[in-house]
């Protein structure tokens, strides 16, 4: 009979917690970035596009290392912002959230953008001539009509977050019960003698969560189609 250790349970919970937090944290930024890239013409738009999509093409380890350089004690943000405020992110679960958010962000933005691009610009113009200011128009027209993209993006990012490994291990380490998520725990089991069974058990948990998430997405999509 399989029995998970408390470290295994905390790895499962931590995985869920990190993926959910990273997704929720990214939603407003993802929406704002997608809006800027879809509707606004400004200098540096291409640069923003490249920066947002870079984590998609870079090896996650590189992203993790860059985050470490940025957020570490001697990094720009670490030294200028975090230290004066007495915040230490590196090797905490919060660092795992940041790593997951950065790596999954391009997926979220892409999904929201795809949704936004299908919104007829005349609807936004109509709202403006009806007296809605820019933000009013964004919240009452763009946001509700981007809902499908927002949901798809969130689910994609959450799923990606569950599997995040490379960036997390660099900025958050692999501390059982503190920063160890499912992939990190599997990695540790696989590297240790006689860890195969437990690795497989955690793999099954991973698969189960993914299946539930995908089924939830399907159900939500079907429900939205029915509401239409």
């Amino acid at each position, binding site marked *: 009979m399989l029995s998970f250790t408390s470290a295994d349970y905390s790895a499962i919970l931590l995985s869920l917690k990190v993926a959910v937090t990273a997704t929720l944290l990214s939603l407003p930024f993802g929406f704002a970035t997608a809006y800027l890239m879809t509707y606004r013409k400004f200098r540096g738009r291409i640069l923003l596009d490249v920066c947002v999509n870079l984590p998609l093409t870079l090896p996650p380890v590189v992203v993790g290392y860059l985050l470490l350089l940025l957020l570490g004690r001697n990094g720009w943000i670490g030294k200028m912002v975090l230290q004066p405020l007495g915040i230490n992110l590196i090797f905490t679960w919060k660092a795992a959230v940041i790593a997951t958010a950065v790596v999954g962000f391009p997926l979220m933005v892409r999904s929201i953008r795809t949704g936004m691009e299908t919104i007829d610009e*005349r609807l936004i*113009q*109509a709202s403006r*001539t*009806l*007296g809605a*200011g820019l933000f009013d128009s964004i919240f009452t027209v763009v946001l509700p*009509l981007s809902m499908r993209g927002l949901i798809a993006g969130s689910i994609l990012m959450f799923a990606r977050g569950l599997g995040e490994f490379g960036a997390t291990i660099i900025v958050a380490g692999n501390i059982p019960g503190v920063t160890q998520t499912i992939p990190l725990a599997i990695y540790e089991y696989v590297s240790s003698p006689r860890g195969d069974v437990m690795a497989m058990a955690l793999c099954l948990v991973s698969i189960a969560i993914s299946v539930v998430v995908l089924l939830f997405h399907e159900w939500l999509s079907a429900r939205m189609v029915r509401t239409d």
Partner: protein
Amino acid sequence: MELRVGLRKSYGTFFLDADFAINGERIGIFGPSGSGKSTLVSLIAGLHHPDSGLIVLDGETLFDSRQRLDVRAERRRISMVFQRPHLFPHLSVKGNLLYGYKRCAHRHREIILDSVVEVLGIENLLDRGVKNLSGGEKQRVAIGRAVLSNPRLLVMDEPLSALDDTLKFQIIPFLKNTCRVFEIPYLFISHSLLEMRIMTDQLLTIAEGRIAEETTAEALARARMGGSPEGYTNLLRLAAPRRIDGFYGYRWGDQELFVSAGSDEPEALFELSSTDIILFKRHPEATSARNLLKCRVVDVFEAGSRVGVELECGGQRLIGQVVSQAALELHLVKGSEVYAAIKAAAFNKLG
């Protein structure tokens, strides 16, 4: 409504340079596709920004490049009806109708939901979603939504061109009635002269990004009749039909007109081409045409290679056309009497 505009805007190779001042309630902007009509009104509504110039509406400056003044679209109180309804798909009919109303300052809220719903005949649609409405219903809701924002000017950018003819002439009475009942001045944009004649009193024609002339749709229709194979289209609003021997008889002034393609609707709009009116100097004892009207010539005017004749028949007006030779033979001069023969099949019901 008093509108003063002097605007310049370039889009790639297209250049809009529009200067005009106009005072009226039912103004048309007429021109072919690509002439700059939509660009002009989107600048007036504040949806796009001119390169330079001035927009003054009822004494209030909405845009002035010299003073760097540019009132935002949502503050201009100019609402729009577009070619397609563009209803908010996530809102109900009522939600759509009230979108602008809720954003309108209390002091401007003179037009209220109930009265608009009644004029547009959409009482039974209020709680429905907008996706399953018919084309005509959608456009009526779009008109209601624009009107309920209590605008000081309504801009209608080709609101009928996406509708088929039947639907178009069903929507026109709603459009006209709504603007008349609620006294909303409007700019009506179209490339259809017929729509212009029904909807507007004054007309600005636009060509290649410039205002070509200020005229009326009626004058333009007369000026163009010579060059058109269909001639001039007389529009007759006929009411109170009665069936007689396979025809419909309609009261028209102090006489009755016989129409083949009539209907039992209490009132209908018919078109009659000037080329379908045959003139006789004297009463032709018998004719196959079911309508023979005694008329007085009110005006005779040049219409290209033809001669246009404005006739007064029993208190109503008709425009006919003849070739120059016929005008001479008939002695068509102001005040002379003629008989106009019109076949019952020549009347075409609109809508």
